[in-house]
């Protein structure tokens, strides 16, 4: 059937993000488990107040929230990414997908957080200043295939979920649906 370009290609599925090889995939998967699964004070401080992830660990969620904040920085008069709960909706969305896809997602976050190490640096993404984070994302955007895939998919998810929030619509010239919301899908990532 036709159409099209339904929403963005978003995320990677099936080992997609790990296509650089089984060995590297194993290292990244192990890394994401070892380094991002336990929470500590640094990461706790990055988690938006009142937002509890269901699928991701506290550290993973903190990296995601920091990434989202970088993609969608606050702008006076606009709803913030914390208000639209972008990171939390992404986390909740993962609950509806199979384990491999979720593992790929975790690996993408691992690349964001520790990607600097791959280029000879020693700074985690969440420890960077804002200009450093922007530079890091620019490098990912132009980096190895795997880095590019991680960046483009995470970015797409962040933007999509932010701009499906009705509070953003007046800013982008969208009048919204013709009907009030009649029923949420049972499998709702807002819930």
């Amino acid at each position: 059937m036709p159409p099209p370009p339904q929403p963005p290609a978003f995320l990677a599925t099936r080992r997609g993000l790990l296509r650089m090889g089984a060995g590297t995939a194993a290292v990244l998967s192990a890394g994401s488990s070892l380094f991002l699964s336990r929470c500590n004070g640094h990461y706790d401080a990055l988690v938006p107040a009142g937002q509890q992830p269901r699928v991701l660990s506290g550290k993973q969620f903190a990296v995601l929230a920091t990434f989202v904040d970088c993609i969608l920085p606050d702008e006076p008069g606009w709803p913030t990414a914390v208000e639209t709960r972008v990171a939390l909706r992404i986390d909740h969305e993962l609950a509806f997908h199979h384990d491999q896809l979720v593992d790929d997602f975790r690996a993408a976050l691992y690349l964001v957080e520790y990607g600097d190490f791959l280029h000879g640096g020693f700074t985690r993404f969440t420890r960077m200043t804002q200009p450093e984070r922007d530079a890091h994302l620019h490098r990912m955007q132009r980096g190895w295939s795997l880095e590019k895939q991680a960046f483009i998919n995470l970015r797409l998810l962040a933007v999509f979920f932010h701009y499906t929030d009705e509070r953003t619509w007046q800013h982008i010239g969208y009048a919204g649906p013709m009907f009030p919301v009649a029923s949420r899908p049972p499998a709702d990532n807002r819930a």
Partner: protein
Amino acid sequence: MDILEWTGVKGDLVETADAVVIGSGCGGATVAKELAAAGWKVLILESGGYYVPERGDFDQREDDMLARIDGGRGLHATADTQCNLTYGHNVGGASVHYWAESWRTPRDRTESWEREFGVEGHSDDELRPYYERLEKDLNVHLATDERLNRMNQLFDRGARAVGIHVERVLQARKNCIGSGYCMQGCSFNAKQSQLVTHLPAALASGARLFADCRVEQVTHERGRATGVFARFLDRRTAKPMGPTLTVKSDCVIVAAGGFQSAAVLMRSGVPDPSGQLGKNLRANPCPMVFGLFNEDVVLWKNIPAGVGTMQYRLPRFDAGKYVEGGYLLYPNQLPPAALGALMPGWGKDHRALMTQLPRIGSTIAWIDDVNSGSMTLDAQGHPVWQLDITGVDDLICRDAMKKGAAILFAAGAREVLLADSLGTRLRGPDEMARIDTVAMGPGDMMFSVPHPCGMTRMGRDPARSVVDNNHQHHQVKGLFVCDPSVFPTAPSVDPSLTIMAFSYVAARFLTEKWRKT
């Protein structure tokens, strides 16, 4: 109407049927309708949910509708994430989100299927009576003036200015008001999807429909189909809820769609001596370009492709070297959040583009892909798709982007944005050559792939095909495939009419000959 949804499932079920149909899209609904009308006891199984506007399910929100009606909730992609799989996961299948363009497969394509792949009984002449019936039943008509949105008008103007032939596109709609939410499922039942056409007809003839019911396996013994085993899904979690379904039937019709039918057969362990199961995947990758205009375009209003051009449908080669063509080119339609997600950059740069969203126009092409991909199952039985846009397909995409950019500039765009991650911007037609070098690999650019086909291809020769010319599996009698998976290649136009016409051919064989063989 006899429809069972997840909330009505109280325990394990065992059913018998003259035919069990796996999938309720264009292929499955059409064959089910015909069999039920012939008096067969038909059971339709759909892994997705049952959604209808009358219950308020079609709320026109991108996020809600993506979760309801899209396969993988919009997140399924090929292994390297270059291609986003666009397919249906709901009663009515992809016809619920499709654009409703309605093409007959061009004669050159059905001739090549016959000549190169041994497909018989599906020639242009043999399909014609079915096309005529479908066009009447689905109210297929050329797009009318009032349905042409600003993007359609700009496409028309721009294309003519650069010498590209423009034509109206046939639409399967009735009483369309141009709400612009075609891809979210029509809230007004105007789009003639299977939900409002062949499914109600099938149910009225006595067919039953189980939604939220995922088929795990087709069962078969000694070369004959014996039924299916399925699990009911909890729609709140998208995971199995416990109860199972066992259907006993000597006629199993797989119509799970071009991305999933081959996976059903693989999970079922059907023989594959030809080695063609899961191969030959083609899916019409869709390169897009965007234009920044000084006027409101509003890509999410009215119908998507009221006009378009067939001028470049066939590729042109010179001494074996690609010159141009190999695609259909249309005005694009995208809802706001999806459009925003495709705009490049982040932070202030991205926000600046978002404030101009209504002034962004776009063209889209369906690439008639030459190279093919494949699908395998991982250890858990999940499909892993592979489809690379390389070689001549890469060249075709670039040519389609050039033609699209030329149209946008000629229509008044002050800038053209490519859909690459870096956000390449063309300031004028003189920069068109940059399209030749823009990075399009995984992580650089994403393509929607909406028209999957080929992975259970049809043919006379069991050594080269999966199903025979009656849609029946070469090695498992009583196992049929009725969806675009049987097309040997992409049909080079929107496949919906072709899928339905093929299902009519299959239904005719089943009702007139199969029980006698």
